[in-house]
């Protein structure tokens, strides 16, 4: 039996890199630009200054002592070399390091040598915190914060290996090439949360990964593999929880409200690496694809590498790109220049030319023809066409109370299927992030932090 979410859409998968082995980026980048804010939370403060010599894995960013929010995540150097400057990029402080290609590993990094059964939850969380691990599925929530909040409040641990967005194959390759590190990471998480059961959710377009994991889990009562239907957005956290457990989370709720916790498979592998080798989160697997890329594949990239360097390591571009997207084609962010750095939440680099057949062509006059396809595919069971209409008519109360715009996970399925090229997703997003009457002034609205926390489809 395969599990499935409500709604959703089957789409062209473009997963042609699924047979490409994960390879280390080569040549290594000449210089990296590591942002201090790669996670969902508050930015870290740089601990280094220009001219310093740093080693690979050395701590270079930490929460400032006066930061009382606690939304911090440590940052480490991803290459060894000299700090050239501290700069500001897109509103975030970055540390630029010139690679000396010596690959010196920081001497402070040591494998954890205690037995897992003798370790306490606090010790594990401390190691995860020191390793700067954030959710690698895209949302980049610091893992230690998620774990600390969840101890004693969960009964189900879900590991997300569905990888539902087109083009992504990094999780698939990871489950094929190092299933043991994924499973060991899950065991560490189970120990931290004192749970006795975990589920690895894998979509049925990856039968080889399912059989690989099941082969390693024969006779294990702790971890089970559950097969989900291949459709988008099967891997969205809330929808996945409901597909596997039948529990639904209110729009303003968190997975803990359904006594569930969801982690990406790559996050599990990163946790295991922090334990077994002591290496913090300084690199991640990135799927490089798109019709402009000469040698598409999965690349292990040091964090902070510019997208252009990664594209160059993949044979460069064969034609001029018209869009460069960091992340997936459904939720990723379009970039205005090719030097954007790879961060903890970047799952893919996609370079599309103007004549890529799947790219949205918004030249046509956008019109809602009221076909209802958006409502058919909406995983949150919304009526996106009406929410867009009501938003345009200024009927904000109806949107909230009746039409539940706050339940939107911003997966983009409605715009994807819209035959009229209507920007439905954008309208629903505006409705969701609408100004709240009598609560915020115009001035506060321009500051994002004044808005209430919201949910997105980024897989975690």
């Amino acid at each position, binding site marked *: 039996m395969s599990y499935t979410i409500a709604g959703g859409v089957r789409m062209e998968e473009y997963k042609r890199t699924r047979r490409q082995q994960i390879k280390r980026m080569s040549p290594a980048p000449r210089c990296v630009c590591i942002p201090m804010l790669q996670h969902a939370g508050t930015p870290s403060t740089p601990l280094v200054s220009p001219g310093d010599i740093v080693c690979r894995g050395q701590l270079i960013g930490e929460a400032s002592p006066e930061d009382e929010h606690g939304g911090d995540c440590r940052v480490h150097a991803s290459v060894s070399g000299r700090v050239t400057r501290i700069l500001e990029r897109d509103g975030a402080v970055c540390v630029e390091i010139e690679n000396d290609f010596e690959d010196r590993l920081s001497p402070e990094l040591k494998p954890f040598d205690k037995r897992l059964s003798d370790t306490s939850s606090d010790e594990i969380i401390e190691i995860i915190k020191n390793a700067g691990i954030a959710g690698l599925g895209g949302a980049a929530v610091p893992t230690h914060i998620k774990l600390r909040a969840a101890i004693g409040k969960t009964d189900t641990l879900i590991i997300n290996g569905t990888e539902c967005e087109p083009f992504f194959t990094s999780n698939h390759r990871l489950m094929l090439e190092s299933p043991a590190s994924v499973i060991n990471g899950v065991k560490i998480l189970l120990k931290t949360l004192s749970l006795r059961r975990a589920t690895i959710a894998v979509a049925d377009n990856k039968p080889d990964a399912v059989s690989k994991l099941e082969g390693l889990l024969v006779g294990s009562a702790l971890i089970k593999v559950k097969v989900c239907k291949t459709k988008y957005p099967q891997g969205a956290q*809330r929808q996945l929880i409901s597909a596997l457990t039948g529990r*639904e989370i*209110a729009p303003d709720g968190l997975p803990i409200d359904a006594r569930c916790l969801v982690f990406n498979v790559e996050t599990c592998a990163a946790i295991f690496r922090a334990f077994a080798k002591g290496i913090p989160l300084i690199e991640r697997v990135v799927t490089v694809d798109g019709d402009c890329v000469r040698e598409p594949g999965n690349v292990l990239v040091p964090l902070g590498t510019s997208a*252009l360097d990664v594209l*160059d390591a993949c044979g*460069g*571009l064969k*034609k*001029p*790109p*018209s*869009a460069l*997207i960091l*992340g*997936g*084609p*459904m*939720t*990723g962010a*379009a970039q*205005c220049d*090719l*030097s954007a750095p790879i961060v903890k939440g970047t799952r893919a680099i*996609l370079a*599309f030319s103007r004549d890529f057949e*799947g*790219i*949205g*062509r*918004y030249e*046509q*006059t956008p*019109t*809602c*023809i*009221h*076909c*209802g396809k958006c409502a058919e595919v909406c995983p*949150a*069971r*919304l*009526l996106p*066409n*009406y929410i867009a209409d009501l938003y345009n008519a200024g009927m904000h109360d109806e949107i909230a109370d*009746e*039409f*539940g715009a*706050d*339940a939107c996970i911003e997966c*983009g399925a409605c*715009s*994807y*299927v*819209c*035959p*009229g090229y209507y*920007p439905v*997703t954008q309208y629903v997003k505006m409705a969701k992030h609408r100004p709240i009457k*009598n*609560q915020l002034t115009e001035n506060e609205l321009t500051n994002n932090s004044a808005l209430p926390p919201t949910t997105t489809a980024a897989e975690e």
Partner: protein
Amino acid sequence: MFKLKSIPQPPSVKAPALTMSSPPHIKHPDNTRTLMLDVLIALTPAYVWGVYIFGLRALVLGVISVFSCVLFEAGAVFVLRRLNGGNAREWNPAPTILDLSAVVTGTLLAMNLPVSAPLWLPVIGSAFAIIVVKQLYGGIGKNIFNPALSAVVFLTLLFPAAMTNFTAPHTPISPLKITLSSADIVAAAPPLAALKQGVFPAESMFTLLIGDHAGTIGEVSTLLLIAGGIYLLVRRVISWRIPVAFMGAVGLITIIFPKVALASDVIALSFAMRQLTCGGLALGAIFMATDYATSPVTPAGRLIYGVGCGIITVIIRYYGVYTDGVPFAILIMNIFVWYLDRYAKPKYFGWTKPSKGAVQTDDR
């Protein structure tokens, strides 16, 4: 600062122009044009059958209807743009014509005309359908009433004789004579007229199913219309809910309350079968009631809408002045679409019942 070695560029361009847009960045290949093209493909067999049994005049009426719809569409867009203060020089009728929705309206209008209709009749119908019903409400997707059906009802009220002047199939009929006199045609009553009187039509069930009888151009062949409907279902252009609820309701009501003297249960069933295959039911349920702009989008709303159409159709067929009730039933249900969607919508993800006595607060 940034290496650009890998990007081939003309010398004048410094950096590649990258498109900034908010996600999603990819798009399903289906668009309005492909959907409308699918509807046209699905209508083709029934239309070809109409031309086969009624002669070339059926085709001439269709061509006139489609052309006048397209012309009125372009003209209406032009005039309305001027009236709304838009720049008439920017007038580009291509997008609204190329989405083929006017072609579908024209085809459906022609399929609802008897073959003996004067050649100017579809022109008047198209003008009403496109200008009044569709464009005055804002064009595709904004209209409340189905344009083609509104035009059919409009013409039925204005020209009742021309709209009910049915001819027997396989009789010679002049394709190009503008107005036909009664000497030019072999008049025949459609089988639904007999059913209205409470008697079985002379045609066999098989004849009714394949559509070898009097009627409008497109409504006769129930079999080919259902085949077109299956094509639309396979291509996921329409959902099964409206046609099944519509035809199911008609079938069920006519089985339970047949309007014939009952001899045995078999007669009730065969009466229902004839009600399902006569008149514009298949054309209406599969192609007109499922019109995107004028039908609900929620699953429950679609079922209620279909059942409502079915009930009103049977009431008009039993007690109404007009022979067929399908156009009126669909137009009446069109009024309720927004309310059906609003009150039959599914509960959104994570919806919880507001607890009793809880104080309503303004914050989320």
